[in-house]
């Protein structure tokens, strides 16, 4: 029996190309059918073959949205597994591996699992991973049939032989697995009876893509860059169905300028990239600010500087997003932390971009994008996002002065007017000007909308009872799940949490919600310097007493945050 009756954590390790992804994609649906709550996340190297990647699957009694360090079951396809993961193993971890290749660290926890033999028997080395699935199903006590139907479906297109090989491989693994002595077999958490019927399982990338489609996105132009590419692929796959124009740009500069051209002409446009690509979009951001043209920019963060660790996670580009582009203009930045927030904030991003005629950033990271969890279809709401466009008349002026600084937006070819946008300082007509007075008015016009943006900013999500607490732990973006779970496990009324899914502008109530300086503030971030803590300081005057930071390229685990918060809580009470 595992340590936590309510929480079983499995890790599947293998080289790129060995099919660890297949293991997960077979196990997850089967486990879901059994009514379990699932969470899964992935870490992988920046290579196509070889190396050592791993996926964690948590089977839990209630919905979880974070990874744990603890591994209850490890299935290792390469000898690197031990070296990379040993610190996460515990005394009773079940380790499935082949003794022959596993190396010197073989010990009592290891179970010699002849996967390559099974694979060869089944039809070839490629089937190792499916044998592994068989082993795991048996160990978890899930009937093999639940999987075989699925295997048939998945591989039908590849011909009967392949289907049979797969099923054979699974069977061999299964037969091996059932022999595991009962006392080593784990007990999974009770399947939850009220697991809702309409639950959907997806990764963060899909959630963002769904948000974009929900918002009516009909134009995306981007240059591939991990981990931002997924959103491009998601939309490309659905382009025909939803009438989305998809263009792969020659570089990121082209991408954002094409996005702005499209938006000028009335498209609901977005681009997706990562920090390095976003560097190249800065001038485009500035242009969006100047010509008051909506654009949504998704940044899938990864560790920098420069190329850094291309397939890892970090929250190191907040400062960059806050200040991207020269000169001064309004923007908004969302940073979702759950599937629901991803779908919701992506829609808000389009809506905000349209209504305020500004560039809007959605800041995610590799961890969030690749992590798989579930959401209820019923909980997915569509905002009504409309391109905020007017039909022009002969007298139309693109930058007509108004009280709130927002001019009705026309597009070329809709109405009798002429629509001019200019990256130079311009007059109401959009024509170049050198007048200092016009400049003064236009600067004020462009910035005035910041007030309304601030008023509308999303309030942070409250976790626990901040009013009663002495300590408030703050997270943003992908760290919502880990903070929620750590606080629950900490179970100490003296510590509460706040999660920001919009990081600019900050909700005006922030200072109050953070206790106006009377509480101890702990900020949790996946970066080296505490960029959000700095922002909170600047915007609310509140200084974080403690920054819990990590910039190794890995996400925080529940245990890590729990440990740090425990430390802080103890520090407080003594």
């Amino acid at each position, binding site marked *: 029996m595992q340590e936590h009756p309510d929480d079983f954590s499995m890790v599947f390790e293998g080289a790129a190309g060995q099919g660890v992804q297949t293991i997960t994609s077979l196990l997850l649906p089967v486990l879901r059918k059994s009514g379990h709550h699932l969470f899964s996340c992935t870490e992988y190297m920046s290579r196509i073959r070889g190396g050592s990647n791993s996926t964690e699957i948590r089977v839990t009694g209630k919905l979880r949205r974070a990874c744990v360090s603890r591994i209850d079951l490890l299935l290792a396809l390469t000898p690197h597994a031990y070296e990379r993961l040993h610190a996460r193993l515990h005394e009773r971890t079940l380790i499935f591996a082949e003794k022959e290749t596993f190396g010197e660290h073989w010990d009592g926890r290891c179970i010699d699992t002849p996967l390559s033999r099974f694979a060869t028997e089944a039809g070839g080395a490629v089937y190792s991973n499916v044998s592994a699935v068989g082993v795991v199903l048996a160990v978890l006590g899930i009937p093999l049939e639940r999987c075989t139907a699925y295997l048939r479906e998945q591989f039908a297109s590849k011909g009967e032989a392949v289907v049979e090989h797969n099923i054979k491989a699974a069977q061999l693994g299964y037969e091996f697995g059932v022999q595991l002595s009962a006392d080593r077999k784990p007990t999974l958490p009770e399947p939850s009876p009220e697991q809702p019927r309409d*639950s959907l*399982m*997806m990764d963060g990338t*899909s959630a963002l893509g769904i948000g974009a489609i*929900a918002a*009516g996105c*009909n*134009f995306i*132009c981007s240059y591939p860059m991990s981990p931002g590419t997924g959103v491009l692929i998601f939309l490309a796959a*659905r*382009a*025909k*169905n*939803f*009438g*989305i*124009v*998809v*263009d792969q*740009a*020659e570089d990121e*500069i*082209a991408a954002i*300028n*094409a*996005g*702005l*051209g*499209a*938006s*000028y*002409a*009335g*498209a*609901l*446009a977005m681009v997706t990239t990562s920090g390095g690509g976003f560097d190249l979009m800065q*001038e*485009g951001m500035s242009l969006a600010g100047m010509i008051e043209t909506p654009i949504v920019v998704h940044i899938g963060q990864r560790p920098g500087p420069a190329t850094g660790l291309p397939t890892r996670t970090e929250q190191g580009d907040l400062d960059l997003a806050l200040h991207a582009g020269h000169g001064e203009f309004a923007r908004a930045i969302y940073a979702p932390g759950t599937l629901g927030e991803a779908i919701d904030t992506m829609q808000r991003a389009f809506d905000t971009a349209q209504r305020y005629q500004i560039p809007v950033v959605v800041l995610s990271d590799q961890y969030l994008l690749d992590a798989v969890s579930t959401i209820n*279809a019923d909980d*997915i709401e*569509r905002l009504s*996002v*409309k*391109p905020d*466009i007017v039909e022009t008349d002969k007298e139309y002026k693109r930058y007509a002065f108004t009280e709130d600084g927002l001019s009705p937006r026309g*597009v*070329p*070819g*809709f109405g*009798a*007017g*002429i*629509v*001019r*946008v*200019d*990256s*130079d300082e311009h007059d109401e007509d959009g*024509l*170049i000007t050198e007048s200092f007075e016009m400049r003064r008015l236009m600067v004020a016009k462009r910035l005035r909308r910041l007030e309304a943006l601030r008023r509308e900013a999303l309030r942070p999500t409250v976790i626990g009872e901040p009013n009663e607490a002495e300590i408030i732990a703050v997270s943003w973006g992908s760290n919502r799940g880990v903070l929620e779970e750590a606080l629950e496990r900490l179970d100490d009324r003296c510590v509460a949490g706040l999660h920001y899914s919009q990081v600019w502008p900050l909700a005006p109530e922030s200072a109050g919600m953070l206790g106006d300086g009377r509480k101890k503030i702990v900020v949790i971030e996946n970066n080296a310097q505490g960029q959000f803590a700095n922002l909170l300081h600047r915007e609310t005057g509140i200084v974080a007493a403690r920054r819990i930071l990590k910039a190794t390229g890995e996400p925080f685990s529940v245990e890590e945050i729990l440990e740090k918060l425990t430390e802080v809580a103890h520090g407080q009470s003594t």
Partner: protein
Amino acid sequence: MDSPLEPFAMPASTDVAWCPGCGNHMLLKAVRGALEELRIEPEHLVMVSGIGQAAKAPQYLKVNMFNGLHGRALPAALGIKLANRNLTVVVESGDGDLYGEGGNHFLHAIRRNFDVTIIAHDNMIYGLTKGQASPTSRRCMTTPVQVGGVLLEPFNPLAVALALDAPFVARAFAGNIEQTRAIIAEAIHFKGCAVVDVFQPCVVFNKLNTWQWFREHTCELPEEHDLSDRLMAMQQAFRSDKFPLGIFYRNDKRETYEELVEAGESPLFRQPPASDEAFRAMLDAFR
């Protein structure tokens, strides 16, 4: 400027920021003449430019205008065209803008072959920034930055366009206003990516490539030139004794990008958002 009743005329008060005697004035006239000849409606035309003296051209016509960033006219034009295929899209910018800062977009716009007309004001200099070498500056010309003279081989826009199989490649000289107008009209009328490099003297900063110089160093394409022969066009593009003027190459068979792109047939601003049904159907795949 002239009567505001003319379709593209700006108010008489319009302050044209170009120097007296600059080739841009004549080129502007040629463009306007071409637009009038083609009877294009100003509301359905978008002029796109970058930054530079040349890039100010769209400010002096009553048309929709996207005056974007230095070097980035072409991607913006692509976005505009893909968002609304009914619009006629014309890019006007400088040699520095299109071939220097924007060189990469020049390559990939041609590869896409979307329906756009690229009019390069080629004065062989950076005008707005006061006279540094541009990609098309001739060897040995001195400037405050190129104190020892230009060391780089001039960029050959026609040869590069031909190398990438641009379906319409031409050169004009603003001094021949009639020919320039005719070429531009044909280029705008052409369906696909049309490249027109127009020699345009900068009378302030380019003391080498003057009106006189251009007159002396240009000629017509040879009588026997076959504008469907890409290699022959290339041969003419390689010439540097004299620079031939005219349409070097024309190929009506290349499909345009927007014909190939599956979505976006009707203007995107008219496109209704995904129906709730279609949206829910998409979600079903994640059950």
